[in-house]
């Protein structure tokens, strides 16, 4: 089992519904977010290219946050999901410093918080909140080890990229281009 998320940048309209769904589902404190929309513009007027991306923790295979955690609060759970155990986290900030994606933050209660791929929903057989609300259905979630899953098929048939692959983290959120 290896969970992965695939996001179609050609279908995303940047409505931020995934952001709000996550904040609601996971009770994110006001002013914080576990996922966000990035708008990347390249080229020069009038030949501009626009790419919209819904970004979050990349649940890396080679996760620097897990390596540098001094207590083992940051760990890799079943399916390659990177999780934080609040009762083990001392709030030292090492994982935040180590993340090339700035995907972690200090929760007002002190511990470090981040995207969990909605682990609690997965256990019930549901999709992550962001995926399930997307109005353009540009987000896909599934098991990479299963060759017939949506995500495996999309990565097989489409061109894609990951964010900052040069950081060597082996991210597991893929962007179709």
């Amino acid at each position, binding site marked *: 089992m290896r969970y992965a998320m695939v996001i179609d940048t050609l279908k995303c309209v940047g409505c931020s519904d995934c952001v709000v769904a996550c904040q609601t589902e996971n009770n994110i404190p006001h002013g914080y*977010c576990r996922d966000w929309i990035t708008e990347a513009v390249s080229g020069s007027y009038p030949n501009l290219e626009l790419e919209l991306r819904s970004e979050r923790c990349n649940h890396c295979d080679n996760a620097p946050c897990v390596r540098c955690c001094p207590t083992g609060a940051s760990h890799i759970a079943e399916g390659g999901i990177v999780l934080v155990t609040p009762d083990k986290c001392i709030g030292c900030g090492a994982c935040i410093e180590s993340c090339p994606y700035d995907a972690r933050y200090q929760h007002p209660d002190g511990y470090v918080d981040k995207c969990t791929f909605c682990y609690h929903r997965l256990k019930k057989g549901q999709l992550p909140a962001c995926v399930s609300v997307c109005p353009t259905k540009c987000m896909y979630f599934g098991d990479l080890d299963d060759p017939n899953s949506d995500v495996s098929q999309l990565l097989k048939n489409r061109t894609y990229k990951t964010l900052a692959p040069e950081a060597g983290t082996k991210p597991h959120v893929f962007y179709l281009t």
Partner: protein
Amino acid sequence: MQEELFTSGRNIPNIDPSLQIWHWPISLYLFLGGLAAGILFFAALFYLLGKEKEYPTAVKTASIVPPIALSIGIMALVYDLTHPLYTWQLYTTFRIESPMSWGAWVLLITTPLSFLWAFSFYRESYPKTESKLKLFKKLKFLARTEHFIISNRKYIAYALIPLSIILGVYTGILLSAFNARPLWNNAILGPLFLTSGLSTGAAAIILLSKSRNERRVFSKIDLALIVIEMALIIHMIMGYYAGSQVQLEAMELLVGGEFTLMFFGFVILLGLLVPATLETIELFGFKVPVVVPAVLVIIGGLLFRFIMVEAGQLTRYLY
């Protein structure tokens, strides 16, 4: 042109627009840890070499500094935690890949040893307080402990040599282990912080020493360490120049960017070159008040930690 924006209005405290996770307590700790490591290293080394009488400050008198420095440093570290009631979780595990875990364990062993070291020399280094220690004599347990520590000093010294080196190196590795912060992510930061720590330790010994000969010897040691430190800094900057785009951008903060004056003016010029020149002049027999180069080295070391911690958090991968 390439431009990236968060359109969902992301503005997380301490994360956006640039990290502010580690504040002044971390910089202060990195400095105090290095200083304590330096003094402990010299104390243990010269004790084992049998130079106790020649360099009484390094071995005995200055031994009061590391326990104080480490205590303040540890308080600063805990103060910067956002979930401090769970600090004990550090000691439920040892994570070999986490520099912070190494640091936590090294501190747990080194700090009590530094207290024992200072305690064992208390009577010798501060004989005037002997009369005030009458209570001491009444507590037979304490006197026996003191005797036990004094008779085992050699073993403490043997332990302190590797421990102080690990402590000094780890203050640098703590930063350099993060590949997400290109300014920190170079392997030379460990040796560089160790050298800087030893240099500030030597400077502190010079400040406290009352013996001309000892000050002279430690001036020479400090001069050698400053030369090594300069070489390491040059290598660090060369490494950035030869690095990838993210490292080039990181280096621009120090060379030509907002930290240029602080780095070249205060750390390199006032913290290294001026004290090195003064110490050289002194070696040729001219009179220089020893306080000046020693204080400059210590302030330079402190500023260096502040600059590296602040500037490093401004650097990141862009994608």
